Protein backbone atom coordinates (compact mmCIF):
# COMPACT_ATOMS: atom_id res chain seq x y z
CA UNK A 1 0.00 0.00 0.00
CA UNK A 2 1.17 3.49 -0.86
CA UNK A 3 0.50 4.93 2.56
CA UNK A 4 2.49 2.21 4.32
CA UNK A 5 5.38 2.71 1.91
CA UNK A 6 5.37 6.43 2.62
CA UNK A 7 6.21 5.80 6.28
CA UNK A 8 9.81 6.83 6.76
CA UNK A 9 10.75 4.02 9.14
CA UNK A 10 11.14 0.26 8.86
CA UNK A 11 11.05 -0.58 12.55
CA UNK A 12 9.90 0.74 15.91
CA UNK A 13 13.50 1.23 17.01
CA UNK A 14 14.15 3.39 13.97
CA UNK A 15 11.01 5.41 14.68
CA UNK A 16 12.03 6.03 18.30
CA UNK A 17 15.56 6.97 17.24
CA UNK A 18 14.40 9.74 14.83
CA UNK A 19 17.63 9.60 12.86
CA UNK A 20 19.71 10.18 15.97
CA UNK A 21 17.70 13.15 17.23
CA UNK A 22 15.39 11.18 19.51
CA UNK A 23 15.85 13.54 22.46
CA UNK A 24 15.10 16.73 20.55
CA UNK A 25 12.17 15.48 18.51
CA UNK A 26 10.45 13.63 21.35
CA UNK A 27 11.09 16.42 23.84
CA UNK A 28 9.29 18.87 21.55
CA UNK A 29 6.33 16.57 20.85
CA UNK A 30 6.13 15.64 24.55
CA UNK A 31 6.15 19.31 25.54
CA UNK A 32 3.48 20.02 22.94
CA UNK A 33 1.24 17.25 24.31
CA UNK A 34 1.77 18.47 27.88
CA UNK A 35 0.99 22.05 26.85
CA UNK A 36 -2.32 20.99 25.27
CA UNK A 37 -3.27 18.71 28.18
CA UNK A 38 -2.59 21.35 30.84
CA UNK A 39 -4.53 24.08 29.06
CA UNK A 40 -7.57 21.83 28.67
CA UNK A 41 -7.49 20.02 32.04
CA UNK A 42 -6.89 23.07 34.24
CA UNK A 43 -10.03 24.90 32.99
CA UNK A 44 -12.03 21.66 33.28
CA UNK A 45 -10.95 21.16 36.91
CA UNK A 46 -11.75 24.77 37.71
CA UNK A 47 -15.16 24.30 36.12
CA UNK A 48 -16.05 21.34 38.34
CA UNK A 49 -14.85 23.26 41.42
CA UNK A 50 -16.98 26.27 40.41
CA UNK A 51 -20.06 24.14 39.74
CA UNK A 52 -19.65 22.33 43.07
CA UNK A 53 -19.49 25.68 44.83
CA UNK A 54 -22.45 27.15 42.95
CA UNK A 55 -24.58 24.09 43.81
CA UNK A 56 -23.65 24.39 47.48
CA UNK A 57 -24.41 28.09 47.37
CA UNK A 58 -27.81 27.33 45.85
CA UNK A 59 -28.63 24.81 48.56
CA UNK A 60 -27.68 27.26 51.31
CA UNK A 61 -29.76 30.00 49.72
CA UNK A 62 -32.78 27.71 49.50
CA UNK A 63 -32.42 26.88 53.16
CA UNK A 64 -31.94 30.49 54.20
CA UNK A 65 -35.06 31.48 52.31
CA UNK A 66 -36.97 28.63 53.91
CA UNK A 67 -35.77 29.37 57.45
CA UNK A 68 -36.03 33.13 57.33
CA UNK A 69 -39.65 32.73 56.34
CA UNK A 70 -40.21 30.98 59.68
CA UNK A 71 -37.69 32.74 61.96
CA UNK A 72 -36.28 35.88 60.36
CA UNK A 73 -32.64 36.70 61.09
CA UNK A 74 -31.55 33.43 62.68
CA UNK A 75 -30.10 31.73 59.63
CA UNK A 76 -28.42 34.92 58.48
CA UNK A 77 -26.59 35.16 61.82
CA UNK A 78 -25.55 31.53 61.56
CA UNK A 79 -24.18 32.05 58.08
CA UNK A 80 -22.36 35.15 59.26
CA UNK A 81 -20.70 33.33 62.14
CA UNK A 82 -19.30 30.78 59.69
CA UNK A 83 -17.61 33.53 57.68
CA UNK A 84 -15.35 31.27 55.62
CA UNK A 85 -14.21 32.10 52.11
CA UNK A 86 -15.40 29.93 49.28
CA UNK A 87 -14.33 29.37 45.67
CA UNK A 88 -15.82 32.65 44.48
CA UNK A 89 -14.04 34.57 47.24
CA UNK A 90 -17.05 35.66 49.24
CA UNK A 91 -17.87 35.09 52.87
CA UNK A 92 -21.01 33.27 53.93
CA UNK A 93 -22.51 36.51 55.22
CA UNK A 94 -22.13 38.20 51.84
CA UNK A 95 -23.80 35.21 50.31
CA UNK A 96 -26.73 35.48 52.69
CA UNK A 97 -27.14 39.12 51.72
CA UNK A 98 -27.16 38.16 48.05
CA UNK A 99 -30.14 35.91 48.61
CA UNK A 100 -32.50 38.74 49.27
CA UNK A 101 -31.46 40.64 46.18
CA UNK A 102 -31.13 38.32 43.21
CA UNK A 103 -29.83 40.42 40.33
CA UNK A 104 -30.73 40.38 36.71
CA UNK A 105 -27.32 40.17 35.09
CA UNK A 106 -27.66 38.56 31.72
CA UNK A 107 -27.21 41.69 29.64
CA UNK A 108 -23.98 43.61 29.40
Amino acid at each position, binding site marked *: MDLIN*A*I*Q*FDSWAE*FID*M*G*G*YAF*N*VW*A*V*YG*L*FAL*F*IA*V*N*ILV*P*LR*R*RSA*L*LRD*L*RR*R*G*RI*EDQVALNSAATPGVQTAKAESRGQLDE*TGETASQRAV*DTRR*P*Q*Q*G*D*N*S
Partner: protein
Amino acid sequence: MWLWFAKLGSPKWFYELSTKWLPWLVVATVLVIGTATVWALLFLPPDYQQGYTSRILVVHVAVAGTSLAFFPLMAVAGTITLVWKMKLADMVAKNAAALGAWFSFITLATGSIWGSVSWGTWWEWSDSRLVSMLFQFFLLLGVVSLRSALEDTDKAAKACALLSIVGCINVVIIKYSVEWWNTLHQPASPVSLQSGSANGPEFWIATALMILGVYLFLSVSLILSTRNEILQRERRALWVKEMIAAER
Protein backbone atom coordinates in the same frame (compact mmCIF):
# COMPACT_ATOMS: atom_id res chain seq x y z
CA MET B 1 -26.44 44.44 13.25
CA TRP B 2 -26.53 46.26 16.59
CA LEU B 3 -28.89 43.74 18.07
CA TRP B 4 -26.47 41.02 17.03
CA PHE B 5 -23.59 42.95 18.56
CA ALA B 6 -25.43 43.45 21.85
CA LYS B 7 -26.37 39.79 21.93
CA LEU B 8 -22.80 38.72 21.29
CA GLY B 9 -21.71 40.72 24.29
CA SER B 10 -24.14 38.91 26.56
CA PRO B 11 -22.35 36.31 28.70
CA LYS B 12 -25.54 34.23 28.80
CA TRP B 13 -25.77 34.10 25.02
CA PHE B 14 -22.09 33.15 24.71
CA TYR B 15 -22.42 30.48 27.38
CA GLU B 16 -25.40 28.84 25.73
CA LEU B 17 -23.96 29.01 22.22
CA SER B 18 -20.61 27.59 23.34
CA THR B 19 -22.38 24.70 25.06
CA LYS B 20 -23.71 23.71 21.65
CA TRP B 21 -20.50 24.29 19.67
CA LEU B 22 -17.86 23.02 22.06
CA PRO B 23 -18.22 19.27 21.30
CA TRP B 24 -17.80 19.87 17.55
CA LEU B 25 -14.83 22.13 18.14
CA VAL B 26 -13.19 19.45 20.30
CA VAL B 27 -13.75 16.78 17.64
CA ALA B 28 -12.26 19.04 14.95
CA THR B 29 -9.26 19.85 17.16
CA VAL B 30 -8.49 16.19 17.88
CA LEU B 31 -8.84 15.24 14.22
CA VAL B 32 -6.70 18.05 12.83
CA ILE B 33 -3.91 17.93 15.44
CA GLY B 34 -3.94 14.11 15.29
CA THR B 35 -3.60 14.06 11.51
CA ALA B 36 -0.88 16.71 11.50
CA THR B 37 1.09 14.92 14.24
CA VAL B 38 0.93 11.50 12.55
CA TRP B 39 1.88 13.07 9.25
CA ALA B 40 4.82 14.93 10.79
CA LEU B 41 6.16 12.01 12.83
CA LEU B 42 5.63 9.16 10.36
CA PHE B 43 5.54 10.50 6.83
CA LEU B 44 7.60 13.68 6.71
CA PRO B 45 10.82 12.92 4.81
CA PRO B 46 14.06 14.03 6.50
CA ASP B 47 15.39 17.44 5.53
CA TYR B 48 18.67 17.18 3.63
CA GLN B 49 20.39 19.44 6.17
CA GLN B 50 18.34 19.10 9.34
CA GLY B 51 17.47 15.40 9.15
CA TYR B 52 14.48 14.57 11.31
CA THR B 53 14.83 17.69 13.46
CA SER B 54 12.78 19.46 10.78
CA ARG B 55 9.79 17.72 12.38
CA ILE B 56 10.26 19.98 15.38
CA LEU B 57 9.51 22.94 13.13
CA VAL B 58 5.99 21.73 12.37
CA VAL B 59 5.13 22.27 16.04
CA HIS B 60 7.39 25.26 16.57
CA VAL B 61 6.15 27.24 13.56
CA ALA B 62 2.51 26.50 14.36
CA VAL B 63 2.75 27.54 18.02
CA ALA B 64 4.99 30.55 17.29
CA GLY B 65 2.74 31.87 14.53
CA THR B 66 -0.34 31.45 16.67
CA SER B 67 1.32 33.14 19.66
CA LEU B 68 1.41 36.36 17.61
CA ALA B 69 -2.39 36.38 17.52
CA PHE B 70 -2.74 37.04 21.26
CA PHE B 71 -1.86 40.73 21.44
CA PRO B 72 -4.08 41.67 18.47
CA LEU B 73 -6.89 39.56 19.98
CA MET B 74 -6.47 41.23 23.38
CA ALA B 75 -6.23 44.65 21.74
CA VAL B 76 -9.53 44.14 19.89
CA ALA B 77 -11.17 42.83 23.07
CA GLY B 78 -9.62 45.73 25.02
CA THR B 79 -10.95 48.30 22.56
CA ILE B 80 -14.43 46.79 22.85
CA THR B 81 -14.09 46.95 26.64
CA LEU B 82 -12.97 50.59 26.57
CA VAL B 83 -15.53 51.80 24.04
CA TRP B 84 -18.64 49.68 24.70
CA LYS B 85 -17.83 48.35 28.20
CA MET B 86 -18.81 44.88 27.07
CA LYS B 87 -18.29 42.43 29.92
CA LEU B 88 -17.66 39.42 27.71
CA ALA B 89 -14.76 41.08 25.87
CA ASP B 90 -12.87 41.59 29.12
CA MET B 91 -13.49 38.01 30.21
CA VAL B 92 -11.94 36.78 26.96
CA ALA B 93 -9.02 39.21 27.26
CA LYS B 94 -8.28 38.11 30.82
CA ASN B 95 -7.96 34.44 29.91
CA ALA B 96 -6.16 35.13 26.64
CA ALA B 97 -3.24 36.76 28.49
CA ALA B 98 -2.44 33.65 30.51
CA LEU B 99 -2.87 31.32 27.53
CA GLY B 100 -0.71 33.61 25.41
CA ALA B 101 2.07 33.39 27.99
CA TRP B 102 1.91 29.60 27.64
CA PHE B 103 2.11 29.87 23.84
CA SER B 104 5.13 32.18 24.05
CA PHE B 105 6.87 29.86 26.49
CA ILE B 106 6.31 26.79 24.29
CA THR B 107 7.56 28.77 21.27
CA LEU B 108 10.79 29.62 23.12
CA ALA B 109 11.26 26.08 24.48
CA THR B 110 10.66 24.26 21.17
CA GLY B 111 12.80 26.80 19.32
CA SER B 112 15.59 26.26 21.82
CA ILE B 113 15.43 22.48 21.45
CA TRP B 114 15.61 22.84 17.67
CA GLY B 115 18.38 25.45 17.82
CA SER B 116 20.54 23.32 20.06
CA VAL B 117 21.05 21.00 17.08
CA SER B 118 20.81 23.29 14.05
CA TRP B 119 22.52 26.37 15.45
CA GLY B 120 24.60 24.60 18.07
CA THR B 121 23.23 26.91 20.76
CA TRP B 122 20.17 26.90 23.02
CA TRP B 123 19.95 30.66 23.30
CA GLU B 124 21.46 33.76 21.73
CA TRP B 125 20.95 37.14 23.41
CA SER B 126 22.01 39.04 20.31
CA ASP B 127 19.23 37.58 18.14
CA SER B 128 16.31 39.95 17.64
CA ARG B 129 13.66 37.26 17.02
CA LEU B 130 14.56 35.33 20.16
CA VAL B 131 14.75 38.39 22.39
CA SER B 132 11.53 39.99 21.07
CA MET B 133 9.68 36.69 21.62
CA LEU B 134 11.06 36.52 25.17
CA PHE B 135 9.84 40.10 25.60
CA GLN B 136 6.34 39.05 24.49
CA PHE B 137 6.41 36.27 27.11
CA PHE B 138 7.28 38.77 29.86
CA LEU B 139 4.78 41.32 28.53
CA LEU B 140 1.98 38.74 28.74
CA LEU B 141 3.06 37.76 32.27
CA GLY B 142 2.97 41.52 32.94
CA VAL B 143 -0.65 41.74 31.75
CA VAL B 144 -1.57 38.77 33.96
CA SER B 145 0.06 40.28 37.05
CA LEU B 146 -1.30 43.77 36.32
CA ARG B 147 -4.78 42.31 36.46
CA SER B 148 -4.20 40.46 39.70
CA ALA B 149 -2.55 43.54 41.24
CA LEU B 150 -5.59 45.77 40.67
CA GLU B 151 -8.51 44.83 42.84
CA ASP B 152 -11.12 46.94 41.08
CA THR B 153 -12.35 44.81 38.13
CA ASP B 154 -13.18 47.86 35.99
CA LYS B 155 -9.83 49.56 36.55
CA ALA B 156 -7.98 46.29 35.90
CA ALA B 157 -9.91 45.80 32.66
CA LYS B 158 -9.03 49.30 31.43
CA ALA B 159 -5.36 49.07 32.39
CA CYS B 160 -4.98 45.66 30.73
CA ALA B 161 -6.81 46.89 27.62
CA LEU B 162 -4.34 49.79 27.26
CA LEU B 163 -1.32 47.56 27.81
CA SER B 164 -2.67 45.08 25.24
CA ILE B 165 -3.08 47.78 22.61
CA VAL B 166 0.45 49.11 23.22
CA GLY B 167 1.81 45.54 23.26
CA CYS B 168 0.80 45.09 19.61
CA ILE B 169 3.89 47.12 18.66
CA ASN B 170 6.00 44.20 19.83
CA VAL B 171 4.11 41.79 17.55
CA VAL B 172 5.20 43.86 14.54
CA ILE B 173 8.79 43.81 15.86
CA ILE B 174 8.69 40.00 16.26
CA LYS B 175 7.23 39.56 12.79
CA TYR B 176 9.80 41.67 10.95
CA SER B 177 12.76 41.11 13.28
CA VAL B 178 14.23 38.50 10.92
CA GLU B 179 14.21 41.00 8.06
CA TRP B 180 15.24 44.17 9.90
CA TRP B 181 18.12 42.59 11.77
CA ASN B 182 19.75 39.71 10.01
CA THR B 183 21.13 37.74 12.94
CA LEU B 184 20.72 34.08 13.87
CA HIS B 185 17.04 33.27 13.34
CA GLN B 186 16.32 32.60 9.68
CA PRO B 187 13.35 34.11 7.84
CA ALA B 188 10.57 31.73 6.80
CA SER B 189 11.55 29.61 3.80
CA PRO B 190 9.42 30.47 0.78
CA VAL B 191 6.60 28.01 0.20
CA SER B 192 7.53 25.74 -2.69
CA LEU B 193 5.48 23.39 -4.83
CA GLN B 194 8.57 21.33 -5.57
CA SER B 195 8.57 18.13 -3.58
CA GLY B 196 11.79 17.68 -1.64
CA SER B 197 12.79 21.36 -1.54
CA ALA B 198 13.42 23.25 1.73
CA ASN B 199 9.77 24.13 2.24
CA GLY B 200 8.13 21.69 -0.14
CA PRO B 201 4.49 20.62 -0.05
CA GLU B 202 5.09 17.70 2.35
CA PHE B 203 6.38 20.16 4.89
CA TRP B 204 4.16 23.19 4.48
CA ILE B 205 0.90 21.27 4.17
CA ALA B 206 1.70 19.44 7.42
CA THR B 207 2.58 22.78 9.02
CA ALA B 208 -0.54 24.50 7.69
CA LEU B 209 -2.63 21.66 9.09
CA MET B 210 -0.87 22.00 12.44
CA ILE B 211 -1.46 25.78 12.46
CA LEU B 212 -5.18 25.14 11.92
CA GLY B 213 -5.12 22.55 14.72
CA VAL B 214 -3.33 24.88 17.12
CA TYR B 215 -5.85 27.65 16.40
CA LEU B 216 -8.67 25.19 17.10
CA PHE B 217 -7.01 24.18 20.36
CA LEU B 218 -6.58 27.86 21.26
CA SER B 219 -10.31 28.45 20.78
CA VAL B 220 -11.29 25.37 22.79
CA SER B 221 -9.05 26.34 25.71
CA LEU B 222 -10.11 29.99 25.60
CA ILE B 223 -13.81 29.11 25.43
CA LEU B 224 -13.44 26.73 28.41
CA SER B 225 -11.75 29.35 30.57
CA THR B 226 -14.12 32.11 29.44
CA ARG B 227 -17.08 29.93 30.44
CA ASN B 228 -15.51 29.57 33.89
CA GLU B 229 -15.06 33.32 34.07
CA ILE B 230 -18.75 33.77 33.18
CA LEU B 231 -19.86 31.37 35.90
CA GLN B 232 -17.69 33.18 38.41
CA ARG B 233 -18.57 36.77 37.53
CA GLU B 234 -22.25 36.11 36.80
CA ARG B 235 -22.85 33.84 39.79
CA ARG B 236 -25.53 36.18 41.13
CA ALA B 237 -27.35 36.43 37.81
CA LEU B 238 -30.74 34.77 37.69
CA TRP B 239 -29.93 32.61 34.65
CA VAL B 240 -26.88 31.08 36.35
CA LYS B 241 -28.89 30.32 39.50
CA GLU B 242 -31.67 28.78 37.45
CA MET B 243 -29.25 26.70 35.43
CA ILE B 244 -27.56 25.37 38.58
CA ALA B 245 -30.94 24.70 40.19
CA ALA B 246 -32.06 22.78 37.11
CA GLU B 247 -29.00 20.52 37.36
CA ARG B 248 -29.67 19.57 40.98
